[in-house]
């Protein structure tokens, strides 16, 4: 597969993964489990602000949909950020590739 087709397909796979996110396990995770068992969970503080807390987009009635949309927003933002960081830092092939016939 060509490079562009491949990464667009991969981005779509990443977006598609968020569709199953409402089915994700709601059990406490590793750190939460330890914090609960050791009794230091109460130390956790709220964040100063909330944008999309808990991966659920505020304002949508369906929790599942809010979860999926939040995930897709995140996927696109992270894609853009990582692409941008790579684009800025990449090695420019000014010596080799600009001189193509």
């Amino acid at each position, binding site marked *: 597969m060509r490079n562009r087709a491949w990464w667009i397909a991969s981005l779509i796979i990443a977006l598609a993964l968020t569709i199953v996110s409402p089915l994700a396990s709601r059990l406490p995770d*590793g750190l939460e489990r330890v914090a609960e068992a050791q009794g230091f969970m109460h130390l956790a503080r709220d964040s100063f602000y909330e944008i999309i807390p808990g991966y659920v987009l505020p304002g949508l009635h369906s929790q599942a949909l809010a979860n999926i949309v939040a995930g897709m927003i995140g996927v696109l933002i992270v894609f853009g950020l990582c692409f941008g960081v790579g*684009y800025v830092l990449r090695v420019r092939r000014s010596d080799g590739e600009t001189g193509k016939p």
Partner: protein
Amino acid sequence: MIVSATWLVPVLSPKLMHIPDGFLSLVATGMGWALSILALAYAVVRTNRQLGERQVPLMGVMGAFIFAAQMLNFPVAGGTSGHLIGGALAAILLGPWAGMLVMTSVVAIQALLFQDGGLIALGANILNMAVITCLVGYSTWIWLQRIIGDRAWTKMAGVFMASWVSVFVASLACALQLGISGSSPLEIALPAMGGIHALIGIAEGLITVATMAFITATRRDLAESRPRAKQGE
């Protein structure tokens, strides 16, 4: 303000190792920021020297995939859940330095936009989930390849083990920070965090192997494009 509502009802939120604000002391917080900023500064320099044009979209795709995969908590033994971290995956595909930048982007967006992991604790979270997973995962992978060779199946065995080790070591680092902070005594935090993440690491290994197999099958050049000559890092 004793226990925040979002912590009482952990709805679908991937907090595998995402430390919230309040768990860490000033010393542990400062150490987290100092070490991760040092590592990231070096990662920027190295990436600026090494990253090829074709790897730019791969960085975007890796970030997108790892972010999505981190949302998918799966149940582990004993009423606990876990999810992919992805540091080893990013480091094996992109090298440890570009991988570290991808992981930092994921962890930073999770904290800034999704309130997953504290803002003050972000330094420690970057240290654990980006810096440590990438460096440990990558060096374990290189080391294993030297020992067990790089035939197709031994390579995948190496990917599995490197992923497992990356999660395990990151969880120990997290336990160490909790211990230094006095949130949980070390002799309890270390085995507790290590024990759970020894299990979660198995899933990390399986998902990383599956993803590597997919990339090798569709784009062998991307799976093997990383310069081998520059291993000693």
